[in-house]
């Protein structure tokens, strides 16, 4: 309504207005760049893992007896364990894994498409016993699951052809299949290692699952290997229960497993806990960035509040005069809110430029994620509201200035 005069009045020798404008601009730039991190990490953490993580129990066993150095003994215990686990009430499926997905630790190998000159790429893999997909709750997109005949015959730990080349059937995820076979025809094709001594034929494609490093840029690349895992140091199982059955299983499992073989240390965690552990550092960073954002808002709100307060104190008489000239209380309130709105607006406009500048600087120094427009717009709207709230109290004080102040001398 009286936009013009307010803006014109702002531009007269008001160093303080420019300072607050600068403060708002800087704050916006900082807030937005903190939020960029939070969003980036949030989107990584909330990604679909492709697994039924809420209902999967991770069983670590660490043998403490030298008996386990004997391969036959080891595989005997593994088979017994798998039978025992599968027989527990509420258990859908159990599989031995040599490493645990989402855990931040795993194995990877280099593979290229057989007969192509594409580069070798890194592929995280898991040695698994049967029913891995069922245990993970991952979906087979095409082809078939691993079968008993895919595994080395009893007493052997490898499958080799006459030339001594290692040959296995494997499952891979769609994401990895498309990297090596961009035409989408990976099923039935083979991948080989660098020197051609190990060849794997893709017999099934998994729709989607994460590997041990879910936030990495190859987080959905997985190869499942039909090789029975387990060493004298450790054996790991994943056990999938019916929804809600995990706690009941965990309560009794250690005891029953120790009955089969007492010479080991057993640790139980849920796959969800494993994931949370892997993300704990990211969660901590999100909290820190969030805290910095809150503090920035606090400081800048103080600044806006301070400015508006002075602006009111300094103009008490002017407010009285305006009231005398017919301004209603609402008009006075509006005046100060519009003034803050304009200052915040100018600050936010400047801040938009600074936000992009800082983002680029941080990207070059510390590889920060890119700033997206919707985030910036959200930041601007939120900031505008915060600014108005900070100015509300002083504006209400202005509103209560009585008109009689106009005739008071001094």
């Amino acid at each position, binding site marked *: 309504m009286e936009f013009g005069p307010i803006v014109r009045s702002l531009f007269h020798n008001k160093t303080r207005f420019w300072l607050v404008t*600068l*403060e708002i601009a*800087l704050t916006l730039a*900082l807030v937005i760049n903190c939020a960029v991190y939070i969003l980036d990490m949030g989107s990584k953490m909330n990604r679909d893992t492709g697994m039924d993580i809420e209902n999967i129990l991770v069983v670590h066993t*660490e043998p403490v007896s030298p008996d386990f*150095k004997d391969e036959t003994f080891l595989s005997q215990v593994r088979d017994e364990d798998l039978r025992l686990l599968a027989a527990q009430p509420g258990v859908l499926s159990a599989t031995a894994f040599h490493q645990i997905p989402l855990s931040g630790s795993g194995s990877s190998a280099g593979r290229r498409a057989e007969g192509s000159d594409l580069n070798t790429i890194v592929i995280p893999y898991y040695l698994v016993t049967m029913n891995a997909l069922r245990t993970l709750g991952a979906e087979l997109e095409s082809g078939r699951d691993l079968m008993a005949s895919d595994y080395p015959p009893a007493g052997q730990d490898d499958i080799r052809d006459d030339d001594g080349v290692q040959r296995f059937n494997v499952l891979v995820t769609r994401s990895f299949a498309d990297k090596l076979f961009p035409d989408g025809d990976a099923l039935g094709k083979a991948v080989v290692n660098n020197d051609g001594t190990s060849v794997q034929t893709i017999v099934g494609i998994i729709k989607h699952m994460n590997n041990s490093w879910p936030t990495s840029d190859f987080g959905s690349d997985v190869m499942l290997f039909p090789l029975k895992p387990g060493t004298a140091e450790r054996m790991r199982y994943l056990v999938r229960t019916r929804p809600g059955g995990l706690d009941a299983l965990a309560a009794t499992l250690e005891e029953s497993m120790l009955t089969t073989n007492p010479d080991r240390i057993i640790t139980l965690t849920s796959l969800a806990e494993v994931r949370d552990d892997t993300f704990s550092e990211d969660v*901590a960073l999100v909290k820190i960035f969030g805290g910095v954002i809150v*503090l920035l808002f606090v400081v800048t709100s103080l600044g806006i509040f301070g400015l508006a307060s002075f602006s009111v104190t300094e103009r008490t008489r002017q407010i009285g005069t305006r009231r005398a000239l017919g301004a209603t209380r609402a008009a006075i309130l509006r005046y100060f809110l519009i003034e803050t709105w304009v200052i915040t607006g100018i600050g936010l406009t400047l801040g938009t430029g600074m936000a992009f500048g800082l983002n680029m600087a941080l990207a070059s120094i510390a590889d920060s994620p890119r700033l997206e427009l919707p985030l910036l717009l959200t930041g601007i709207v939120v900031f505008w509201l915060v600014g108005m709230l900070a100015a509300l109290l002083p504006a209400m004080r202005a509103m209560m200035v009585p008109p009689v102040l106009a005739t008071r001398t001094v």
Partner: protein
Amino acid sequence: MFSYLLLTAWRSLKRNPFLSLLVVVGIALGIGVSTTFVTAVYRLSLHPVPEKEDRLFYVRMDSWNPERPWRDSLPDDPPDQMTWRDALEVTSGDIPTHQTFMYKAELTVHPEDKDMRPFRASTRLCTNDFFALFEVPFQYGGPWSNAADAAAEQVLVLDHATNAKMFGGEDSVGRTLRIEDREFMVAGVMAPWRPIPKYYDTHNNPFEDPEEIFLPILLSESMEINGAGNDSNWKGYERNEYADTLASERIWIQTWVQLDTQRQKDDYAAFLDAYALDQRKMGRFERPLNNWTQETAAWMRDQHIVPAEAKTLLIISLLFLVVCSVNLIGILLGKFLARAPEIGVRRALGASRGTIFMQHLLECEIIAAVGGLAGLGLSVLGLWTIEALFVIDLNFKLDLNMVGAGMLLALVAGLLAGTYPAYRVCRIPPAQYLKAQ
């Protein structure tokens, strides 16, 4: 005069306590946030053994795949660990003052006390020079002997906590401990020791505690102890026996040397290259000669001990302080100019511009000092929060350095923020506000 200025400044602060509080809170937040992150990043990037800063070297040799570099993204870098055979060889000469090769494993300890369950202990396999190289303090006994290293005797060094757990903290030197299927004799017990980061091996978690048990590394050959850290391999091998791994191109061993003189450095570099060229004759080391003795600080940088996010937070926190200072300028300007009539009177009564300027600058510095103190308190809270969130021990102390740095930062911020408002207020002409309006 100074005390009068101080008094005037103090009165003026007291006159509007709410506003003064606002200003102090503003500056305290700025100092709190910035000193928190400055301290955190400083602690993380501190050299773990400053007295050996330029004498301690991590050895890296390029024994990798002739077809492609160890890391496509770092084509000029040799691998970050070494093969068993190379590590063994390059630490067997007599050029370095101290040298060791080592890896991390997990072994099962079987307590004598039958009520205690066997447990997995983090174990480091290394040579006895490890303790001199990294200046490990001992509470009882000391490192095992050279002979014990050479003969792979069953001796060990316990860390302080494990000695407390197994032997009630007593002098356990000479007593035995059952690990896996063997009896070991305690050679020494370490005093509490926690380098931050755990710079001698940062591969898995650079902020974890040192291992609980230290054993002579050559025991690996007979006990067939697999590593529990990172390992990588570019060349497949048939693993029928443990010895196959030791002879393979698998990299999983860390190698450190202490080189005190330039001569030692030159000699050792030449020694490494000669070794690599010698190996090349046997069909290994086919990549271009690229062997590093890397200074600890550079090695820590390569290992990203200070994460990228920490640098971002450091920059953001310093800009946060700028925001707080700008905020301070704005509020001080308002506070001072609102006082114009009083300044007019003071000027009329003979206060010079300089006096008025000093009075106000002093007021700013009082605010800054109070804000700085409060900010240091906040930064202790902030550092505790960071330690709790990341489950690390920054081992920070609110010492003279930190207090000094925080207060200096606060006073400089106060000076920078206060100069303009103080200048503006001292330029107020005495006459203007004396007339009745």
